[in-house]
């Protein structure tokens, strides 16, 4: 019962030993090192990106430069192709991505639950799921455009890219639930529905978050690819447009915004994970 014992009364106050202080110092130094290195990498990248075109080592027409991104951004705030501010383009992309991964999550859980419920259904569908997941979904972009129209082909591509991997991940999470936990629920006479809602689903929360991490990123890929083909709005459209008229400033600014959007999405999921996993 050691855990409870140590969790019990407070330890008698003792000054920390010199070795411990030394260890703390080294810990702090390591942490600072990592942060500084992370920042350093970004700085080196930006400096190279700025310096190489200026020194004439690469053609600025091809790469643009970081220093032009902010002015380009300000310019695009006022007017862009299709007369919408770049914020409207960004919002269109973010909205479609949220639609995409939300749909992938909801459908993914529902399909995985169905596969768990009917083992034979899984046995039938397993090869198809694996093949569908391995298929390059981007091959369907033109077809989706014809089938679903401008807006829904983007949602469709976002869903198509992220759905199958989500189903496979969540299903394997369901399979990974300790069968003895299910047996325990059954000793109390739990129905299959109760096993699903009281054991399998709550036990799979870490898997659900892992799936969310994967499919949020993939949904964004699907949206951008979909926008290449069909949109008159969105960052994917801006990238396509900018490269067609050889304005790398527009392309690079859009890509920079995409990088920021990805980071914010990552942060949001990271915080969700902390909040949810606090209960474990």
């Amino acid at each position, binding site marked *: 019962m050691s855990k*409870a014992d140590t*969790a019990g009364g407070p330890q008698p106050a003792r000054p920390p030993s010199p070795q411990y202080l030394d260890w703390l110092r080294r810990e702090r130094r390591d942490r600072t090192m990592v942060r500084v290195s992370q920042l350093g990498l970004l700085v080196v990248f930006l400096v190279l990106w700025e310096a190489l075109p200026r020194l004439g080592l690469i053609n600025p027409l091809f790469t643009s430069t970081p220093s032009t991104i902010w002015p380009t951004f300000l310019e695009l705030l006022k007017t862009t192709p299709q007369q919408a501010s770049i914020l409207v383009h960004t919002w269109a992309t973010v909205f479609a991505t949220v639609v995409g991964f939300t749909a992938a999550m909801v459908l993914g859980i529902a399909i995985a639950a169905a596969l768990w419920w009917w083992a034979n259904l899984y046995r039938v569908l397993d090869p198809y799921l694996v093949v569908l997941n391995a298929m390059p979904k981007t091959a369907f972009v033109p077809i989706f455009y014809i089938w679903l129209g401008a807006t829904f082909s983007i949602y469709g591509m976002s869903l198509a890219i992220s759905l199958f991997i989500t189903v496979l991940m969540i299903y394997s999470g369901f399979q990974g639930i300790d069968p003895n*936990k299910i*047996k325990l629920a059954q*000793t109390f*006479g*739990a129905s299959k529905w109760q096993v699903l809602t009281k054991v399998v689903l709550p036990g799979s929360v870490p898997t659900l978050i892992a799936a969310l991490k994967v499919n949020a990123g993939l949904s964004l890929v699907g949206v951008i690819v979909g926008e290449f083909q069909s949109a008159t709005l969105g960052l994917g459209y801006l990238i396509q447009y900018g490269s067609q008229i050889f304005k790398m400033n527009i392309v690079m600014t859009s890509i920079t915004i995409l990088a920021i959007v990805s980071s914010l999405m990552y942060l949001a999921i990271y915080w969700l994970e902390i909040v949810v996993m606090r209960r*474990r």
Partner: protein
Amino acid sequence: MAGSEAAAPKVELRGVGLRYFGREGETEALQDISLSVAPGEFIAIIGQSGCGKSTLLSLISGILKPTEGQVLVDGQPVTGPTRKVGYMLQQDYLFEWRTILENAVIGAEIQGADMAKARERATQLLTRYGLGQFLHHLPRQLSGGMRQRVALARTLCTEPDVVLLDEPFSALDSQTRIALADEITEILRREGKTAILVTHDIGEAVSMTERVVVLSRRPGRVKSQHAIRYAANGGRPAPFAARNAPEFNGYFNTLWKELEVHVEG
């Protein structure tokens, strides 16, 4: 044979057999098991690993259905899990996403019982087992022995008449298991439960229970039954005391021979 047939049996097995089916063929796990347990009796079932001891408990709990024969509780054939039977598994299998109290009431929750009452009873049980200050802790914050006491509270919270114990101490260190054996035996006796303990630990069986049933190797059959009687404490000393009673070694040696323990080597 123990003289337990006088009262109507609480649990009765009549010619029970169980076969598992697989693509390679069928495996006979249990064969023609007949056994009856009187109300309030505490028996042990021992046998080597793989002899179908745990399967027998799954049959009594109604999770598995026998391929032959009948399982009766209170004279009624068992068709599925009932509230009369509580089952304590080899490990605690507490749900790590639920607090201790939420874990203890899961049975009531599944059975759709009155949750306010269940919470009250679970709190009472947990407090009695020395876990009163951990009600809202998560399982990972508890030690193995404490977790297994939560599992006991979870089993008893639904107020079963019959308690099945499937090597409930196997995951614990030896000191904790002996201490917990005392506690659990005392609790089960005080509450007048009918209990069936499955174990491969002869000492545990002899010290805790009133009758030991020996199963043969696969397919499991009832090989012999031994009534365990102690002179001390009206025949019911606590398990720890029983281990020091003069009768203990005799029973232990008899059962040791019965089990035909061979160490391959």
